[in-house]
């Protein structure tokens, strides 16, 4: 590459002036302003997807406050793309010029949906500049100059110039062009093609030619400097223009509010310059006519940082002398580095040198956070409501404002809501729950009463982490495809979820789950219809599990109704009574019903029935404490019938017996049942099933009551060894339901029943000397060799042993 040629290369073709920029660079933006004032183009062509032309009027609105972004939703599963703009974006300067001077402006880039690899975007920003930063040439220059990274080198070379130097836009952009051309020269064109960069450039060339043919007079093309060399080369060449890929750009773009935090290249979005709050300060200074605004910005930021550290106590006390010395430090560093004024790197250096009194990598979180806050900022932009703005976005913003969400700042905050006492807090929580359920990353539940499962309801406050940021707006833009308000989208989704259930028609638990969710979200427009469906389906619901699940959902809803301002508890009580009665009556059917299928299926079915029993007992307990209008006696009688019926499966009988014994009305019940199920004549399988039922329902009973344990002990003692070993896995599973402390207590009890002798210590380690293990292993391998030699190795396999 001929450097002299490159240095003197004209950035003009056919009265089209090319402006190579770095996105969000205050220096580029300032130089571009001078260029536009001098050149007075008839039209400005900007690197940005062509369909953004539809948003030009909206972008030109006076009330738009940066940072904002054009968001393009993805047609597929992936996230969409952002095209961020801030005051220091050259593109923004071009758009302002378009508005103020009434010149045409157009976007000329390929739609992101049409680019290669669009299904899996490596970066969600359409202003990705990582190619230049990672260019071998730039990296070599970084090493040579002793800079820390590409950003520091760029700042030294281009940003730290006086306003007068930037007004010499010809010289400035020629140098930027040189930088970018050399940066691009180390990239393999094949990599650029496979990433779709060449397709984009073909599209830009096509658009530039089209506008050139259409408009007379000077045109200005504002693109990332990485593309300028290729655009110029293609336009000047006589070769046949490259084909522009045709495709459907998909969903339309929307203008959304953007935040400094997301704009920060350091935050991982890889677009443009780092530290947007700092760059904003520089841009403001240039606009006010300051020659070296970075000097003032650095001084102000050091003063604010010192004050802030003093107040937060994050580091050793930072006094006024330290701040003064930091300002001088930054100035001296700039002088040593031959810069016109201290810049961002000098600011960082002096803040670390003068404020931090410990090793750099040990800097406490508060110090680092303060640095990032100073440089990055957390402000959000604003856009006025408009016809093209999705109604759902406006609806969400209105509701968020009502829920006291700060829409101006992207900092994450925790809201403590007094949901028991304050209706306004309940309304806020309802909104947070709604957006969270819709998958909008605005609110995350941290703790407090769990209204879905009905736990922790006595906790006083509910905590939510809240942050309104561009991802929230982007997510809302994507939701806007589904409806005009959050409530309508939620209602639609709930209805779709019912249709999408596996069964042909939704059953009662499905319907009640939908009703419960709708109540929690405050989406009540379809609830009457769902209630009617429940009434219709109720009679068809005959399964014990389905009835208990319905009951449970109604109980939870009833428990939390005051926390969600549920409007109509009358039908709720009515339904609860009905489902309760039907659940209890379903117990009778279980008594004579033997589970079907293999061992595992039978056990699983019985397990689920026992779980249902325990749920009913829990509801019953709530009821007996006066919280539910339910007939507890009904349940007890049902249990009695279940326990007394001779062909009830053992585990169910055990559980029913245990639950009745817990009530304590019949003191001899457990003893009697134990005699029946564990006594002489009972099968071993039946005995272990019964035991499993007791332990599952009320494990403490076995410890509390001596007689069942004695019966069990005697029963097991009567088994011969083979039978005992056969049932050992079952027994082991049963006793696993006890925690280790209870198992220990149980062992003590059993030991007391055995006369004489000490209870062996379960924790005593059995020591086998390693030599013994080794000799056993040797013997085994010799034996295996002998068997193998005799052709009898199959004896060693489990099948062979049988």
């Amino acid at each position, binding site marked *: 590459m001929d450097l002299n040629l490159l240095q003197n290369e004209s950035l003009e073709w056919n009265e089209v002036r090319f402006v190579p920029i770095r996105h969000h660079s205050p220096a580029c933006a300032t130089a571009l302003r001078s260029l536009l004032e001098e050149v007075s183009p008839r039209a400005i062509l900007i690197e940005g997807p062509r369909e953004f032309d539809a948003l030009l009027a909206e972008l030109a609105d006076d009330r738009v406050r940066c940072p904002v972004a054009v968001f393009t939703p993805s047609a597929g599963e992936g996230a969409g793309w952002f095209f961020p703009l801030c005051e220091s974006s050259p593109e923004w300067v071009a758009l302002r010029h378009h508005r103020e001077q009434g010149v045409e402006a157009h976007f000329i880039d390929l739609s992101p949906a049409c680019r290669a690899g669009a299904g899996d975007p490596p970066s969600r920003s359409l202003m990705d500049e990582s190619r230049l930063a990672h260019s071998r040439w730039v990296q070599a220059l970084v090493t040579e100059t002793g800079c820390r990274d590409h950003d520091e080198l760029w700042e030294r070379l281009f940003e730290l110039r006086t306003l007068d130097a930037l007004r010499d836009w010809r010289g400035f952009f020629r140098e930027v062009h040189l930088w970018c051309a050399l940066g691009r020269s180390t990239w393999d064109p094949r990599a650029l093609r496979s990433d779709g960069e060449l397709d984009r450039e073909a599209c830009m060339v096509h658009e530039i030619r089209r506008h050139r043919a259409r408009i007379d007079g000077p045109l200005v093309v504002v693109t990332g400097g990485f593309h300028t060399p290729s655009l110029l080369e293609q336009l000047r060449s006589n070769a046949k223009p490259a084909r522009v890929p045709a495709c459907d750009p998909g969903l339309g773009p929307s203008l959304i509010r953007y935040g400094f935090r997301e704009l920060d290249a350091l935050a991982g979005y890889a677009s443009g310059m780092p530290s947007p709050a700092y760059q904003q300060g520089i841009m403001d200074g240039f606009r006010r006519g300051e020659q070296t605004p970075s000097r003032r910005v650095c001084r102000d930021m050091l003063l604010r940082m010192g004050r802030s550290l003093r107040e937060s106590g994050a580091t050793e006390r930072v006094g006024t002398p330290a701040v003064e010395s930091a300002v001088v430090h930054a100035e001296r560093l700039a002088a040593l580095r031959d810069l016109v004024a201290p810049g961002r790197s000098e600011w960082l250096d002096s803040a670390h*040198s003068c404020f931090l009194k410990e090793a750099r990598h040990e800097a406490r979180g508060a110090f680092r956070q303060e640095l990032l806050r100073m440089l990055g900022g957390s402000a959000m932009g604003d856009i006025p409501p408009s016809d093209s703005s999705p109604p759902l976005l406006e609806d969400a913003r209105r509701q968020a404002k009502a829920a006291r969400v700060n829409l101006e700042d992207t900092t994450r905050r925790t809201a403590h809501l007094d949901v028991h006492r304050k209706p306004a807090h309940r309304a806020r929580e309802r909104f947070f729950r709604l957006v969270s359920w819709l998958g909008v990353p605005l609110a995350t539940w941290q703790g407090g009463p769990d209204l879905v499962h009905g736990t922790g309801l006595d906790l006083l406050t509910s905590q939510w982490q809240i942050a309104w940021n561009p991802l929230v707006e982007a997510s809302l833009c994507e939701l806007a495809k589904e409806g005009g308000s959050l409530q309508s989208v939620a209602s639609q989704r709930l209805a779709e979820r019912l249709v999408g259930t596996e069964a042909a028609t939704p059953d009662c638990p499905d319907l009640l789950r939908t009703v419960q969710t709708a109540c929690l979200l405050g989406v009540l427009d379809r609830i009457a219809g769902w209630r009617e469906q429940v009434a219709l389906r109720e009679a068809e619901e005959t399964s014990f599990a389905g009835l208990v699940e319905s009951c449970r959902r109604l109980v939870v809803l009833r428990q939390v109704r005051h926390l969600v301002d549920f409007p109509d508890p009358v039908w709720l009580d009515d339904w609860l009574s009905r489902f309760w009665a039907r659940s209890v009556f379903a117990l009778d059917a279980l008594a004579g019903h033997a589970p079907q299928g293999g061992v595992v299926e039978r056990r699983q079915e019985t397990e689920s029935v026992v779980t249902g029993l325990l749920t009913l007992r829990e509801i019953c307990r709530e009821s007996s404490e006066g919280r539910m209008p339910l007939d507890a006696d009904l349940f007890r009688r049902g249990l009695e019938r279940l326990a007394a019926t001779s062909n009830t499966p053992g585990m169910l009988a055990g559980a029913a017996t245990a639950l009745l014994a817990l009530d304590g009305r019949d003191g001899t019940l457990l003893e009697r049942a134990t005699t029946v199920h564990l006594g002489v004549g009972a099968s071993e399988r039946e005995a272990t099933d019964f035991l499993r039922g007791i332990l599952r329902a009320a494990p403490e009973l076995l410890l509390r009551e001596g007689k069942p344990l004695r019966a069990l002990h005697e029963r097991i003692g009567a088994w011969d060894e083979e039978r005992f070993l056969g049932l050992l896995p079952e027994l082991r599973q049963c006793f696993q339901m006890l925690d280790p402390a209870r198992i220990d207590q149980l062992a003590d009890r059993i030991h007391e029943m055995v006369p004489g002798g000490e209870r062996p210590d379960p924790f005593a380690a059995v020591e086998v000397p390693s030599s013994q293990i080794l000799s056993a292993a040797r013997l085994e391998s010799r034996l295996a060799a002998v068997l193998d030699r005799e052709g009898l190795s199959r004896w060693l396999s489990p099948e062979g042993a049988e």
Partner: protein
Amino acid sequence: MTESAKSILRHSAESLHADELARLQASDADPRPEGWRLSPRAVRRFLLGDSKQGIERKFYGDDPLVDRCIVTLMGNQGLMLVGEPGTAKSLLSELLAAAISGDSGLVVQGTAGTTEDHLRYSWNYALLLSEGPSNRSLVPSPFHQAMSGGKIVRFEEITRCPPEIQDVMISLLSEKMLLIPEMGDGARLHARRGFNVIATANLRDRGVHEMSSALKRRFNYETVQPIKDLALETELVQKRVAKELALDGTAPAGKPALQQDLALMLVTVFQELRTGRTREGTAIKSPDTVLSTAEAVNVAHAAVLESRYLGNGTLDGGALARQLLGVALKGDPDDARKLRQYMESVVKERARTGEPWKSFWDASRQLWT
């Protein structure tokens, strides 16, 4: 260098680089702070090198750190260099003192036995008894000399001094003045321009004597990090070993003392053990012992000498392994276990790729068993 100078075991930086300093001084057209022998830019060139003037780079890995150190020394604050042992803190302070004051020999070594006399002054008692307190009978400390001469004084391992000795520094640094009451009411020594302090503190020694916040406030802190760039550290180790051998007069003719593949292997081992991560990204256990660039140079230097005087003259991975174990194992059984684990999991695997890992593994295996 004269014959007598050649016999000196270790030269000071200003003597070793006298030629470069003289050239820099002669061509230095930039403004100089009062009391400085070179301008800040020339000091920077002295440390970071300048190919146009034939100035060799002496400090590697962090150019902005050097800028910050120079700027700190131009102000009223002292410079505190903190970092892991062996990260060239002392080298940096020596080079800075040599370039700024032309004298890197004003050093106080912080120890548990450092007394106030080491920081202020003491007396020649024979003269004191015969003549009374006078300039002749006063024995100036390095601080005293630096203040009166407007020079940089170096305070090594400051956190090893007892707190009451550290506190003496507070008044010296804030008042920039030393009272000598024995010589009358008005006897005081005001520091001349150019005076400043470079202190070093070792992060491993933290807690021996934590510095008071009053003293911390009088210093700007700079952290010296180990070199992270593998190629840079390899190049540095090779250069340093060649220099050590040249000083010994044992440098081989015509070929590098430490060949590229051996240097790369040694630095890879040091970096992996230091960071607790292999070059493939696998986490490994990092020993507590210091594994700095300086230690790598020591290992390589000793291995070269071993092969020269005790072996067949050809350096291989085996000699490096033997020396490495001597450096890395300092009696901590935990460290021995971690190192062995590294050898058996990482080095053994790489030994399959051939030399120099193979001889390195073979030698280390013999040492373990």
